[in-house]
């Protein structure tokens, strides 16, 4: 194996594959990155039995072949090389990397022990990279991080024809985002539960590219069952990733949204976030903040009389009954941040019932229901 590749292209591609490599591999070979050189291109792959990543980059290949080297080391090396063409040569049990006068000799791992990467399921549809990245980031913020409840560490993807719904919840808040895409078949109907962290990383990586192809295996089709694949062009290279779907049933969430509301409040998002951050300074360890709505004002309070207290009021347009409700300040901040809208609308039924947060383009606009953030309040005991 012998090839020459552009330094930036290599560094970028290697860094992307290396991200999905396990930091503590269960088998030594899984720390490796597979380099495959053939026919004018280079294929770099990583796999940890959960997530696979593969990137295709152009290269001047003088001798075809493959080698397995430590992915982390290759990433460190390629990142620090000067901006000159890089030559890679496999030589016996070693790979030699040269760039200008820098020369690295790296031991290889046995290629024959490396597992075969899962096959990409067949494409289900296409979505714009930025739309997808934005939607995923709005939803993933609500996903759980508790490994004791693996189902909640995932983002639920529901596809009905050209409509895609993403949902995630950690039991305390739920984020739901709807967007449209171009399905391969107009009557496609499918659901999947994708690990939120992987999905967020993947979507971010494809944000700058034009289109992302999502590939969801149809149950019973054989290839790629239990997997979801994403493919797209990014940084001028073709990137593909697959990840194993999570097992288990995502909770039924549509009925959680209250059918009616008693109080609706509209507040400018940015001043509310600033005020919330200030008041939350005295809410240690995410102790609740209290939000009181009434008389054209939203008043935030936090803290306890035996430590420190804070309060601040900002203008709010309130319809319906006055109300006082408690929230975990971080959950509220997460929701307000994810709205990505200048005006936030809160819909409440009771102080013990979940509140719905939606965004508006302006104070007098209709709420944008593509994105809804449902937040369970904190019950204040006294």
């Amino acid at each position: 194996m012998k090839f020459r590749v552009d330094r930036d292209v290599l560094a970028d591609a290697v860094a992307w594959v290396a991200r999905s490599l396990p930091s503590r591999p269960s088998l030594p070979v899984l720390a490796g990155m597979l380099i495959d050189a053939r026919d004018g291109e280079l294929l770099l792959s990583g796999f940890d039995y959960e997530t696979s990543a593969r990137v295709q980059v152009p290269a001047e290949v003088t001798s075809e072949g493959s080698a397995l080297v430590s992915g982390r080391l290759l990433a460190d090396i390629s990142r620090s090389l000067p901006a000159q063409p890089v030559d890679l040569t496999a030589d016996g049990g070693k790979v030699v990397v040269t760039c200008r006068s820098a020369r690295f000799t790296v031991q290889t791992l046995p290629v024959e022990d490396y597992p075969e990467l899962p096959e990409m399921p067949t494409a289900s549809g296409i979505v714009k990279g930025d739309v997808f990245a934005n939607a995923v980031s709005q939803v993933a913020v609500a996903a759980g991080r508790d490994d004791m409840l693996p189902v909640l560490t995932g983002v639920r993807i529901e596809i009905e024809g050209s409509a895609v719904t993403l949902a995630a919840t950690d039991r305390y808040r739920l984020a739901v985002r709807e967007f449209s895409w171009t399905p391969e078949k107009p009557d496609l109907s499918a659901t999947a539960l994708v690990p939120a962290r992987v999905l967020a990383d993947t979507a971010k990586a494809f944000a700058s590219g034009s289109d992302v192809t999502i590939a969801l295996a149809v149950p019973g089709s054989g290839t790629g069952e239990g997997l979801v694949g994403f493919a797209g062009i990014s940084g001028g290279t073709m990137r593909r990733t697959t990840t194993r779907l999570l097992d288990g049933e995502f909770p039924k969430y549509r009925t959680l949204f209250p059918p009616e509301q008693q109080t609706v409040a509209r507040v400018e998002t940015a001043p509310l976030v600033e005020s919330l951050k200030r008041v939350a300074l005295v809410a240690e360890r995410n102790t609740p903040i209290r939000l009181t709505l009434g008389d054209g004002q939203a008043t935030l309070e936090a803290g306890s009389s035996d430590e420190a207290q804070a309060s601040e009021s900002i203008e709010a347009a309130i319809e319906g009954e006055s109300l006082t409700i408690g929230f975990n300040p971080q959950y509220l901040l997460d929701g307000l941040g994810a709205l990505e809208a200048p005006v936030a609308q809160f819909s409440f039924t009771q102080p013990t019932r979940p509140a719905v947060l939606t965004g508006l383009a302006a104070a007098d606009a209709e709420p944008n229901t593509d994105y809804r953030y449902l937040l369970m309040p904190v019950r204040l005991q006294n």
Partner: protein
Amino acid sequence: MRSKPSILHLDLDAFFAAVEQRDKPSLRGKPVIVGGLGPRGVVSTASYEARAFGVRSAMRMAEARARCPHAAYLSGRFAAYRMTSRAVMAALRELSPLVEPVSFDEAYVDLAAGDLGDLSTTTAVEHIADAIRARTFEVSGGLTASVGAGTSKLIAKIASDLRKPDGRLVVAAGTEAEFLHPMPVSRIPGVGPATGDRLRRIGVHTVGELARVGVSELVAALGQAHGQALARLAQAEDDRPVVAERESKSISVEDTFDHDIADPRLLQMIVDRLASRVCERLARERLSGRTVTVKIRLFDFSTHTRSTTLAGPTDDVRVVTRLARQLLTDVDTSAGARLLGVGVSGLADWVQDDLFTSVVDDADNDAGAPGELAIGGTPENLVSGTPDAAPRLWSPGADVVHTTYGQGWVWGAGRGRVTVRFETSSSGPGPVRTFAGDDPDLAAYTPLTWKDPS
């Protein structure tokens, strides 16, 4: 130390046994012993009739049975004790806002915090103490209490102890040393048999002798902390304030079993029950917690604890039960467990409710504490799908209700049969009947009051 005898200590006499005698008229005037009835059980409370036979609390149940074979042996009804205790504590709070419950049957009251007029004479305080005893009798349905008052918690506690049962003693300010010094050292709380032995070895038998021994000698005999504390108490120096609410760091309950249990289904059932008891206590104290801990002591006395922390505090029995069940499976109990405990820590006074558990029908929140009803009664409710695998447990003394005969209590059970005496606090001694253990007309229940509903 205060200048007036304004700290009062109230101790309900033989509390558990007295509640049983109140609710079971046929046991009045007879020896009653409440405690763990299994082979490893100990006596919680013995009625004064049983104490005459030498039965004491903390005695092994086997010894109690040998000393007083004809007593009524009951396993205890904590819902009834708690209810009665609450009524008494509430009556004390009417008197002064500063009430420090020490346990179900014991509390300190800071009379100076209430609007009670002159407290400088013993006669004035004696009047208050008598009024408290009369009020306690009234609100508890006929329970007697012993009351002591003095210038410190120590004096108040010893005074109530001296006049047990059904008595009252107020120790005048300035007479503390005179009062304490003739007493045996064992009267001082915290001086048990071990400390008593060590003190005897240095020639100390009475509090007066204790007061004359130097601090250094006490520290040498008992260690730094204990020695210094005792030296102060011997001089009647005690500044501990009456604290209305003690801040607890965790809430936990545990059960030791009569026999090691290896059956995973049974262990899970016990964990469920412990979880609901913990949540009941959380609810009562208006607290919530973030960390759930399960404690498991195996057959070989090795103790294992496993815990998990939620993102936000909860007081939801379903959440605590779910986590406790998961934690239980982390420890290999296949060789048998002898103790299980469930605790909640990271306490807060607010609750981060869960989106999903909150949608479950609110009606079952209103039903009170799920699981509590099953304690003496029908564990099969908790093990779905195996209705006939676990026999119904009728524990002696437990409250039951029969569709025809009404309210009563389990007089005895065994060989698939259960004997019930049908009587209540207001009925007078009632008749005894025997049923099949699985009689559908008979059910365990938790009375909401001991008072006559009419």
